[in-house]
Each structure stands twice: as structure tokens, then as C-alpha cells.
């Protein structure tokens, strides 16, 4: 079995799994309880908060644990309801947990400007600047795209947001384990993370909230997480995420150069097998380990099924909840034709993928290409 869909999710790191089991079997106290059992659980959560804050180079007070990346994005976007200025600037390549929330928010008087991207899937900061009105209360642009891996001009956009006194949120879900996030240097007010993208458990995430930014909770109840995320904490998940984030930051350089090697190998070999193969995304600003490739003649659906039958997992783009292959809104935003769209595969490497794995993938891809052209 070979897995090349790490942008959709990653397997859990064995050390994280060990920690999850330990905590699930020993730490059952409610962190809000004042007795020993509660205190032990609370200590687990605060330990994780320290690990996350250290990795992101921010203060522990700026870390809010959520039920995942989607929830973190929702928390940010729904907060526009409490703001005076109800106009949001975002991009056409955002995750549905941004774009669909904005669609919903139009019912409540929130308007938005959706910035297009160029053929390399990159937002032009000047477009963001031009979209600002006196009503703009939030800019939300993802750090790196999940389907093609293009890294956005976040520093420039952050500067623009700061100059105009507008909150800046970035969906940074794809970033940990691939690039370092230094909150002390980036001009980002809010960042969303999801543990399962970096070998942590599912159903747990982080919202980084820069000091001074005031939010209201989306989920209302017992006032946990500084009153920003009610509900008894997912102790093992939170603890697992803290460890996973720390591990993702360790050996980051080695891991990214490994991803770059694997990508190089893939492109070299494929050049001989399929010279007409096209690569999507920005040539320079690209997440290491993410390949979006458009094949001549064969649909991605066909590839996915054929490879799956042989125990190899790739995807067409973002994972869809129905499990079917839908045309990608990201490729569409890049002005690629529906035909091009339907022939595009995403291969996303993980830390356990080896050169042999890549050679095996290429072998299978070339078999499918050959069968199809016969």
C-alpha cells in the first residue's frame, strides 16, 4: 500500500498515538474541575499550548484550541457579524470553510470581494489593496493552497492589512511540517491550523489570535478557552496536537529537502515517460511535496480508480466529502479548462514516502498511460 495524499490527511505519528493512548487511559478528569483529576487534565492542555506557542513563536495566550481547521476558519469569519465593517476580502482559491461561510453570511448583510488568482494560482497583493473599501473589516487569504500548493504573498498582504487597520486572517492549515510559521514576524492577526495535516489526530485544531484581537465565540457554553470555544476540551486530541506540532517542526529542513528530492525524481522520470505532462502551481512559490499534474488523454477519475485497485492513493485535488471527484474550483479559478481540470491529479508526499515508493508510483502511472493509449 502506498499513500500519496498527505494534503488530504496524514497518518498519525507513532509517538503521538502512544501519547493519545496514555492520556485516554489515565486523564479523564474534566479540565474545569478544581480537584486533582481536573488539574491533571488541565496541565495536559497547558503543556500542549506551550508546545504550540513555542513552534509558532507566539505567546500561550494567543493559542485557542478548536475542533479543527474548519471550525477555526468559521470562528474567524462569523465574527464579522460583531464588527462595524461588514465587508470581507478573500480569494477564489480558499477552502470551502471560508468561501461557503461567506456565501452564508450574505444572508446577514455581509458582503465580500473575491480576488482572482493568476495562472499560477497566486493572488496579486495590488488586487487586495484595490478591493479595500471603508467598509472592509477582514481580509482572509490562505497561506498556501491545498490543491496546487502555491504559496501566497502573505507578507505583502499583511503589510497592506496593517496599513489600512484591517484584520488579516490566513488559513495556514497546509503549512506546518512544510514551512516554518513565525507569528512574531508575520503580520497576520489570525491563523487556522488542523492537527491531522501534520501527523496529529483528527477533530482538533488551533486558532492563533494575535494579542489585542477581540473575538466572540461561535460555540457558546461553559466559557472554556478564554470564552472563545465552549465545550469540555478534547484532552488527548489537544495533547496529541501539541506533540505533533513539535515533531513537525523538528528536522523541518531535512524533511523539506526530502520532499524536494522526491519531487525532482518524479519530474525527471515522468519527463521521459510522458513529455506532455503539465504541472500546475507557481514554479517558485510552491509548498514542498505537493504536485499537481495534468495528464494528456486520461481523466483523473480513471487514474484514481486504477491506482486504488493496486493499493496506491492519490487524489484529484481537495478531498470531497462525498468521495466523488468533483471539478476543482481552484483549477477553475486558475482559468484552466474543464477538460484540463478533469485530467489533473494531486500527488502529495509525506515524511515516510521513499524514492522506491515514487518509482513504484511512476511505474504504475506509465502502465495506465500505456493501456489507455493502446
Amino acid at each position: 500500500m502506498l499513500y500519496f495524499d498527505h494534503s488530504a490527511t496524514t497518518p498519525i505519528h507513532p509517538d503521538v498515538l502512544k501519547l493519545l493512548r496514555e492520556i485516554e487511559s489515565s486523564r479523564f478528569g474534566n479540565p474545569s474541575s478544581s480537584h486533582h483529576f481536573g488539574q491533571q487534565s488541565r496541565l495536559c492542555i497547558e503543556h500542549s499550548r506551550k508546545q504550540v506557542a513555542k513552534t509558532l513563536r507566539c505567546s500561550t495566550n494567543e493559542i485557542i484550541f478548536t475542533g479543527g481547521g474548519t471550525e477555526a476558519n468559521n470562528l474567524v469569519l462569523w465574527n464579522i457579524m460583531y464588527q462595524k465593517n461588514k465587508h470581507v476580502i478573500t480569494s477564489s482559491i480558499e477552502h470551502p470553510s471560508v468561501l461557503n461561510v461567506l456565501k452564508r453570511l450574505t444572508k446577514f448583510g455581509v458582503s465580500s470581494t473575491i480576488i482572482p488568482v493568476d495562472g499560477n494560482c497566486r493572488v496579486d497583493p495590488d488586487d487586495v489593496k484595490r478591493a479595500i473599501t471603508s467598509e472592509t473589516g477582514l481580509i482572509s487569504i490562505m497561506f498556501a493552497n491545498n490543491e496546487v500548493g502555491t504559496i501566497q504573498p502573505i507578507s505583502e498582504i499583511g503589510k497592506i492589512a496593517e496599513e489600512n487597520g484591517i484584520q488579516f486572517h490566513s488559513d495556514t492549515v497546509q503549512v506546518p511540517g512544510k514551512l516554518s510559521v513565525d507569528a512574531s514576524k508575520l503580520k497576520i492577526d489570525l491563523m487556522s491550523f488542523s492537527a491531522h495535516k501534520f501527523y496529529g489526530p483528527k477533530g482538533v485544531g488551533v486558532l492563533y489570535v494575535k494579542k489585542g484581537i477581540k473575538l466572540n465565540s461561535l460555540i457558546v457554553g461553559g466559557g472554556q478557552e478564554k470564552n472563545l470555544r465552549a465545550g469540555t476540551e478534547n484532552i488527548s486530541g489537544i495533547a496529541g496536537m501539541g506533540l505533533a506540532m513539535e515533531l513537525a517542526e523538528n528536522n523541518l529542513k531535512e524533511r523539506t529537502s526530502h520532499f524536494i528530492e522526491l519531487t525532482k525524481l518524479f519530474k525527471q522520470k515522468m519527463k521521459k515517460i510522458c513529455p506532455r505532462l503539465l504541472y500546475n502551481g507557481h514554479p517558485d512559490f510552491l509548498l514542498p511535496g505537493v504536485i499537481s499534474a495534468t495528464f494528456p488523454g486520461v481523466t483523473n477519475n480513471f487514474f484514481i480508480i486504477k491506482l486504488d485497485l493496486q493499493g496506491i492513493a492519490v487524489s484529484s485535488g481537495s478531498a470531497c466529502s462525498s468521495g466523488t471527484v468533483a471539478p476543482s474550483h481552484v483549477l477553475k479559478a486558475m482559468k484552466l479548462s474543464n477538460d484540463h481540470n478533469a485530467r489533473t491529479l494531486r500527488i502529495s508526499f509525506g515524511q515516510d514516502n521513499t524514492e522506491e515508493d515514487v518509482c513504484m508510483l511512476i511505474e504504475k502511472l506509465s502502465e495506465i498511460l500505456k493501456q489507455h493509449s493502446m
Partner: protein
Amino acid sequence: MSKKVIVGMSGGVDSSVAAFLLKKKGFEVECLFMKNWEDDEYCPAEEDYNDALQVCNSLNLPLHSVNFSREYQARVFADFLDEYRSGRTPNPDVFCNKEIKFKVFLDYALELGANFIVTGHYARIKHYGDRFHLLKGKDIKKDQSYFLYLLGQKELEHSLFPLGEMNKTEVRRLAKNAHLKTYKKKDSTGICFIGEQNFNQFLKKNIKPKPGDIITINGELTGSHDGLMYYTIGQRKGIGVGGGFGKKEAPWYVAEKDLVKNQLIIVQGNDHPALYSKTLKAVDLHWIHSIPKNGSNSITAKIRYRQNDQNCSLVFDKQNSVHVQFEKDQFAVTPGQSIVFYEGDECLGGGIIESRVCS
């Protein structure tokens, strides 16, 4: 058997080090986190509790937590609002110590079997001549005896202030060396329940503002105010009158609040005589161990926290009140604030400033 102490943990560096020191001295130490305030919008308590918990965990000390917000509301906050309503400027921290930390908390700790409570205050307790005495903290810049003048014999008998002989730099260094999480945590400033909120907005939420006129001491109308509670005697900013009004270009200051007419009375220049007084009347007097002699001339006083000691003499009258005659003019004597009396390093007690006599 070793003595049992309960440390009041605030989640700050001072109480962390207090706990650390008592443990090192061989006491049986337990810690107690007090939550004294409930607020939907502003609650720093979660963060402070987390810090207290992590410090206790690293020192391997048990932590209890308790909510005294009902007592705080009834015994401190209600009076705080009443004082503001009557145009005075109260000092709730003094009453928090008297009513909560050294009453509710102390009783609670004694009930839990403690011999002493421990706090991170910068002050010293000495026992001699059969009496307990309260002395200034060794670190004169941090000395907190001003806030403790309402303590009595029982409270001092059952309290320990391990930081009294130390200075803040030493405290932070100890905390760092002991790997206490709070070693570089910022000192809390301002009134605990207001925290980082805007003070005037906080007042506005709790007391209905009553707008009125601003007039000069000569009776000229210069503008309007949003409510006398937003102003303090001696205040310069926020009067809304520039230096240009009047003859000189000097800034304007609040000299008086006329509650009957709901007027704010201002004067120009910080040397205006209406801002100064040499005599004041203080009421609700409290003495830590004994009443000083009438006319005693070795007594000094502070009319606000961190003020240098001011030479003065006391003349008592029949109703628990005193006339304080200062050697030098005092700027902005503010009704509602505490006046605290000293003899050298010793805090004798104090009272509430009722009124002043202008120079």
C-alpha cells in the same frame, strides 16, 4: 510536626515565589487560588489559574481553588460603586485586603487547618512588646504596606509575608532559577476587576452618568462634563478645556467636585492654591496595635500609594476622626482615598480622607 500554611496564589510571580520559599523552609504548604470576580466579557482568571496550576505542579504542591466573587461583590464592589456615586475616589484594593484576603480567605484557611496564610505582599510583620507590628517592605519601591493598613492583630498573627525582606529583582531571579513559569510575567496594574478595560467605560456600565457643567473657580462656565465620577481631583487631562481659555496659557486642573450642583470646578495652572491643602480630615480610623498620641510629632503619612512620607501631626476629635496637619502643602488631596500613617518604617494604621482645608 511542621506548621501548615496556605498560600494565596494569584498566578503572578510574587505568590509563586512565596510558595516556593515556604516549601523550602520546610512548611507543609498548600496553595489556594481565589476567583473574586465574575464577568462575561473580561476574565483574566483562566489564564491566571493556568499559571498558578503550572507553578504548583512544578513545585509539587496541592492547589485548591475557591470562588469568593459573591463576598467580593457584597463587601468590596458595592461600596466601590457607592463611593463613586457620591463623587469620591475609593481605593478598592485596601478593602479587598481587609474583607477578602485577610478575612474570608484567612477564615477559610484556618478552617482548612492552616496555622498561617501566606501572600506575596512586600511588607514585614514583627512581633515584639506583646504586639504584632506591620513594617514597610525592604524593597521601598515595591512596599505595599499602604494597602495593608486595615489589618489588625489577629490578621498579622496568622499571616506570613516571605517577600518582605526581598526586592523584586531577587524575587524574579529566584523564580527563574526555580523554573517557575511566572518568572517574567508582567506585574498586574490597576484595579484587579477592571484589568485592561477602559476605566471610564467600566464605570459607565455600572453607574448611570449624570452630565453637568464645568465651571472655573470664579464661576465662569467653560463646558460640560459627562459625569463627575469620571474625574479625580488634580486631574489634568480630559477636561476639554485648552490652555488658551483664560489669561495664561497654563493647563487646567480639576480642583473640586460640587455634588449638589453637579458641577466640576477647574483651575488654571498646577500651582493654583485651590489644588493644595495643608490640612485634611480623615475618618474611619484604624490602628494596627495602638492609637498614637495626640500631637505626636514623629508621625508621617502617605495620602496616596507610592507617595514619599510626609511629615504631619495629628489632632483627634471625639468621633473616630482626626485632623492631619502637614508640614508641607499637599497636592490634590482626594476624598475617598486612604491616608496611611507611619512612624519610621512602621505602618501604624490609617483612615479615609473625608475632606480637606484649602491653603
